[in-house]
């Protein structure tokens, strides 16, 4: 299955959070052709011009094609005034065959990597970074996140130290400064997604009420933001997601042709690929026929960095759905082994099955296990691993394909009536997530919709999100603690 764009149908779109380590291979190899020695490139991935375009899924030349990805400012060179080879996969992509969503780097502010007084519109450090980010986003992406300062910065000592932001309200204040700047300075080439944060329902509601104006065409006819991005508790708590959608419909802020994109940040649970499709279908059916929902995660890249390879997708009825990842083969003794990678993987007992991708189909064991005993790596040391850096790149490509395939195959099975345990309840009466969501979104009266959401309170608590307070932990003491107690 090579054309994953064609397989996407009307599913919520998974955006691989493209690693700069990976894109550097594709970008640099376009220049000089020796970032990876052409003899190192497996035969099925070779191009006549020795580039690595076969590994570029955004290109028609890719060994598989997939139109969509996300790329973050946090890892990128933002200076568009200089030519940067390693950024070329992103900067010089084929815009006819790709759609790229930019992440603004709010995470870097939260972690204290981007220093500055972000509450001060005139702070030189913060102002310089704001300009860099908006210039880069405006001229590189189709859609991008606004530059939010996540509410969790209040729990990040490094973030507090570097940004001077110590409370939720200061995070709000800093985000408002950034949003105002983006509205006044955007060039119109990129559509912006208004990031919603907040670590509890109370904070998330407050954040929404403060930030919703930035999406309001009545207040900002020419510069309003163009959609929404769900962060914090908004991206992991179905109850809150549905409440927010009801609010958006009630407030007229998720309108056809005006706000057509909603992104969920950092979402890796396979079940969410389905529930977001359910939500998208309900929204398209009842309210905004053009709404596109997307979600991203970096799991395919992070897994590889930890030596893990995706090997199987498990989609059994009424069970937990997963993409299985295990340790890959990594053995200097296999440096001369020309067994197909998948066979070597099984032979070495890594797992009982291996789902080949267009990247691994043609790959040999010694394409991954490159270093033999005694071989020195590129910094002149003999390391423990048999992998060279291109081994990581190859398996990242495989992991990306498998993750995308998993989200699509999960949707296909779901359409066939195979359902993960998380999205159905038959304890007392049968509840199917898609049907319940359709009922809620289809409610003409927002108060009735909210009542329905409350009615299914226990059902939402069975749906686990990627991080934050999810499932039963969505009910906790945080809100009242923050309201009634002070820590000093």
């Amino acid at each position: 299955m090579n054309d994953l764009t064609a397989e996407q149908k009307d599913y919520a779109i998974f955006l691989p959070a493209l690693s700069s380590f990976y894109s550097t291979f594709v970008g640099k190899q376009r220049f000089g052709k020796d970032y990876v020695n052409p003899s190192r490139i497996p035969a099925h991935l070779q191009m006549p011009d020795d580039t690595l375009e076969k590994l570029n899924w955004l290109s028609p030349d890719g060994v598989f094609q997939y139109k969509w990805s996300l790329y973050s400012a946090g890892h990128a060179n933002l200076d568009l005034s200089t030519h940067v080879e390693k950024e070329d996969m992103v900067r010089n992509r084929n815009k006819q065959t790709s759609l790229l969503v930019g992440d603004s780097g709010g995470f870097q502010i939260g972690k204290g990597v981007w220093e500055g007084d972000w509450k001060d519109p005139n702070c030189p450090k913060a102002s310089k970074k704001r300009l860099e980010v908006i210039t880069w986003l405006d001229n590189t992406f189709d859609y991008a996140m606004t530059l939010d300062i996540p509410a969790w910065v209040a729990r990040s000592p490094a973030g507090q130290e570097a940004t001077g932001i110590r409370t939720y309200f200061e995070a709000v204040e800093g985000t408002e400064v950034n949003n105002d700047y983006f509205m006044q300075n955007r060039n119109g080439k990129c559509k912006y997604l208004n990031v919603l944060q907040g670590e509890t329902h109370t904070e998330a509601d407050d954040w929404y009420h403060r930030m919703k104006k930035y999406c309001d065409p009545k207040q900002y006819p020419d510069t309003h933001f163009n959609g929404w991005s769900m962060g914090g508790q908004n991206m992991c708590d179905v109850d809150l997601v549905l409440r927010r959608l009801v609010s958006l419909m009630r407030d007229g802020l998720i309108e056809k042709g005006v706000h057509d994109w909603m992104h969920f940040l950092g979402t890796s649970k396979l079940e969410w690929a389905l529930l977001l499709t359910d939500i998208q279908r309900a929204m398209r059916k009842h309210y905004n026929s053009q709404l596109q929902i997307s979600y991203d995660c970096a799991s395919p890249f992070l897994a590889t960095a930890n030596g893990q390879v995706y090997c199987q997708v498990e989609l059994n009825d009424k069970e937990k759905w997963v993409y299985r990842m295990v340790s890959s083969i990594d053995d200097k003794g296999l440096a001369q082994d020309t067994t197909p990678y998948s066979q070597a993987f099984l032979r070495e007992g890594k797992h009982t099955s291996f789902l080949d991708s267009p990247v691994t189909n043609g790959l040999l064991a010694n394409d991954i296990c490159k270093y033999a005993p005694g071989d020195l790596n590129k910094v002149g040391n003999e390391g423990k691993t048999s992998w060279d850096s291109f081994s990581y790149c190859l398996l990242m490509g495989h992991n990306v394909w498998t993750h995308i395939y998993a989200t699509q195959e999960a949707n296909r099975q779901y359409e066939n009536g195979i359902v993960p345990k998380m999205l159905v309840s038959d304890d007392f009466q049968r509840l199917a997530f898609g049907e319940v969501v359709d009922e809620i979104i289809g409610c003409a009266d927002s108060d009735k919709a909210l009542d329905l959401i409350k009615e299914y309170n226990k059902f939402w608590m069975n749906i686990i999100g990627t991080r934050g307070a999810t499932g039963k932990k969505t009910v906790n003491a945080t809100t009242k603690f923050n309201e009634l107690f002070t820590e000093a």
Partner: protein
Amino acid sequence: MKDYLQDIVQHTYGLGFIDLVKITGTSEETSLDGLAEDRSVILKTDFANPVPEFMGTFGMPNLDRLGTILKLTVYEENAKISINKQERNGDDVPVGIHFENDAGDFENDYRFMSSEIVNEKLKSVTMKSVNWGVEFKPTVGSVQRLKMMISANPEERTFTAKTAGDDLVFAFGDHSTHAGEFVFQHDVGGKLSHAWDWPVEQVSKILSLSGDIVFKFSDDGVSEITVDSGLATYHYLLPAQQK
């Protein structure tokens, strides 16, 4: 000394959700502060009398370890328990507890956390002023009825407290699940207009402690269970649970 240590462990780590406490002692008074990691319980404690060994500010971490040492049979009789001190900035400050058995051939040292570290890890928590709508002394029978209801609703992590007439009613579950409710206390002499949710495990465990217990609820969204062990009065403050 051993009695104080056992009392502290029983009322903190023994509950299962507080593993670090901060002691602040002067010649006039001794106090103890603790906080559950998930903020579900804030503990403030006043000792009935100043504890002379607990001078200054220090942390008691890994209370499970202290609990284990206190239960060792070698220390059951005639154990020598003393506070280790070190000079810091001209002051003798407590740095740990030394345990030695009667024969002098078995010993343990439990290490305190320095004031700098404990002040960083366990910040001082202050509660805003609230109005207590209901205040009463729960009976042993009430606590037993609570445990019965918990056993019938083991999947519930929270329960709702509300007043019905003069009675305080606890409710478990809702219309979509198995459910149950019961009168926890008759004639509580107050009103609750807001039915907040409270954590089952924490409330149940605190109410199971021995000592004189007073239970308070506020419509503002906080409850307090006070346990007087004789050696100290432990104030457990519980923020209401919500999404």
